[in-house]
């Protein structure tokens, strides 16, 4: 490459599924019909849970929700391409992946309502899911910190000679943090088997991409770090699946980390604390309606004769019931006990925490 003024590096976007649900003729994939149907169901489940949680937030039952509407394709299809033990590191808008892994609506609800069955014992905000049995690292609010962590975890997998990769989700805003730079660079230097999955969804809260970066998105950075890099249509589950699977193979061949930039759009507000009408036009959002990953897969399934309106209705009815039952169960589960406040700070409880716990116990007793 010549040193040149205004050098351009433009990445094309890999996409297979068109807006009507057609795949290119001759296109081959290894996804069974059952898998495709499950993918559709999990995307719908994800969307439903998000919607319900947002409603519960308005009702004061849940404090805070980050919906993933429009981005379910990124999370579900990437998780589909991995083995169940591969370690996922989330940003926070990838609930589809943990649901794909088999976390139930009920388990998810226990977390969202921060009750005693929440694996994090109600300590974090809701939407900070994580479950060791699903090999899914607990979300941390601090953006991008998970990126070098995922590199380190992958390094451990490599030297422990495991058939395992880590996959780290983040979005284009978080990619501005120093942690992004360190994480990708370390991974490239040590050829760690880690897939960096960037959801480029156009916004970071109110901040549009032009104030996030001046280059051609995030993908060119992967090349700069010396790693194999792909840009995909994040709303096309076939593209996301295919490239994530390729990425896993690259990792397992010892060729080092892979960066995937998935182009998508944050259809909803940033979170329940946000009102996007203050900073973007409705028309812009509407443009993305036909690109919806759930809709496109549904059209595809219908075209393939795997799905129809009747099935859709029956599935949704059952799924909605399941979600309601899950929420009901979570609402009826008690809050974490007082002692959980002082546990897990260290492996053991030191004297100062013990004293503080006893003080608080006495206080609570007095109150009752």
């Amino acid at each position, binding site marked *: 490459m010549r040193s040149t003024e205004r050098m351009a590096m433009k990445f094309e976007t890999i996409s297979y599924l068109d807006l009507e649900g057609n795949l290119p003729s001759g296109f081959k994939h290894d996804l069974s019909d059952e898998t495709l149907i499950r993918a559709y169901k999990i995307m719908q489940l994800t969307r439903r849970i998000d919607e319900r949680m947002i409603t519960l937030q308005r009702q004061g039952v849940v*404090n*805070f929700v980050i919906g993933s509407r429009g981005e379910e394709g990124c999370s579900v299809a990437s998780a589909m391409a991995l083995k169940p033990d591969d370690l996922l590191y989330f940003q926070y808008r990838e609930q589809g992946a943990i649901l794909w892994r088999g976390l139930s609506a009920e388990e998810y609800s226990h977390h969202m309502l*921060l009750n005693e069955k929440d694996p994090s*014992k*109600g*300590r*974090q*905000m809701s939407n*900070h899911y994580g479950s060791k049995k699903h090999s899914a690292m607990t979300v*941390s*609010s*601090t*953006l*991008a910190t998970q990126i070098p962590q995922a590199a380190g975890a992958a390094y451990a997998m490599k030297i422990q000679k495991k058939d395992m990769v880590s996959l780290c989700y983040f979005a284009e*805003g*978080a990619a*501005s*943090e*120093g*942690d992004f730079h360190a994480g990708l660079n370390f991974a490239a230097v040590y050829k760690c088997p880690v897939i960096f999955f960037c959801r480029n969804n156009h916004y*970071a*809260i*109110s*901040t549009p991409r032009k*104030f*996030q*970066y001046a280059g051609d998105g995030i993908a060119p950075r992967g090349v700069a770090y010396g790693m194999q890099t792909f840009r995909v249509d994040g709303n096309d589950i076939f593209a996301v699946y295919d490239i994530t699977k390729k990425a896993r193979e690259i990792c397992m061949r010892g060729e080092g980390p892979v960066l995937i930039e998935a182009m998508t759009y944050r259809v909803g507000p940033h979170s329940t*604390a*946000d009102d996007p009408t*203050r*900073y973007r036009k409705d028309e812009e959002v509407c443009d993305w309606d036909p690109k919806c990953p759930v809709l496109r897969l549904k059209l595809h399934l219908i075209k393939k004769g795997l799905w129809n309106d009747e099935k859709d209705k029956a599935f949704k009815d059952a799924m909605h019931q399941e979600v309601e039952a899950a929420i009901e169960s979570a609402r009826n589960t008690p*809050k*974490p006990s*007082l002692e*959980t*406040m*002082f546990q897990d*700070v260290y492996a053991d409880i030191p004297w*100062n*925490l013990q004293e*503080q716990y006893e003080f*608080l116990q006495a*206080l*609570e007793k007095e109150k009752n």
Partner: protein
Amino acid sequence: MPVMNIIEAINNALHIAFETDDRVIAFGEDVGFFGGVFRATVGLQEKYGVERCFDTPISELGIMGFAMGCAQMGLKPIPEIQFADYIFPGYDQIVNEIAKGRYRTGNQWSNGMVIRTPYGGGIHGGHYHSQSIEAQFLHTPGLKVVIPSDPYEAKGLLLSCIRADDPILFMEPKRIYRASKAEVPLEDYMIPLGKAKIAKEGNDLTLIGYGAQHHQNMTAAAEAEKMGISVEVIDLRTLNPLDIETITASVKKTGRCVVAHEAPITGGFGGELTALIQQRCFLHLEAPINRCCGFDTPYSNAHEKRYLPDSPRVLISILETMKY
């Protein structure tokens, strides 16, 4: 005089600063077009242009380093860190670079700026939207720290900070951003830095706090009053430089002292206050100085209410100290 909440008072102060000094600029995540997630910078971009008030990429270290460069070229930056919990990626730029800049360059350059950031608990934010970070910045020569407790104070202190010639961390009690209301003059006014405020006079015990905690302290003092205990309540306002005179005069008068803050007790600023007071008022002390603070755990969402040193807990500390 109009009634404002803290956010409005801060916004008002920023507008005055922008109007009266064109070296002033403000930036941070979502600070420009949107006006900040807490709406503190609303209207600045519209009125003073995108060059003076703008959105940044998400990088706190970038925001801090960028601000330092602006300051070195003579601008007066007011960078915002969206939540105090997220200031740590910029910690090195603040404690090693911004704070030491004047000293290190032999006074050839300085880094006058005001780092604004909402801090503290009480909003269901869990670990990362609740922390009180002041102690982590009060061991840093070169950096001043100011924390207002109400709208009137917020405006006057912020204007003083902007017009001072040092880097200043200005921590805003987000829990009471909207809950705390007061009459605030529309005019330009300043409250001097380095001066604590005796918010309530008293003779039996000195109660020291700042920010949102100050209101818990006032409530506790009122309760204590009902029980016949006369509490003098000090709102520090500036934590560095500390108003040691006001503090020692008060404790010498009362002979007893409680220090309260939201941050974990161990390593918190209460330790420093205690050490200073016990040294300067030793012969006047009738009881140990009592600290009423957050616990030594990360900030737990589910236990938020129990975590905070609310007025009932402050009252317990007062009673304990009186009984000693």
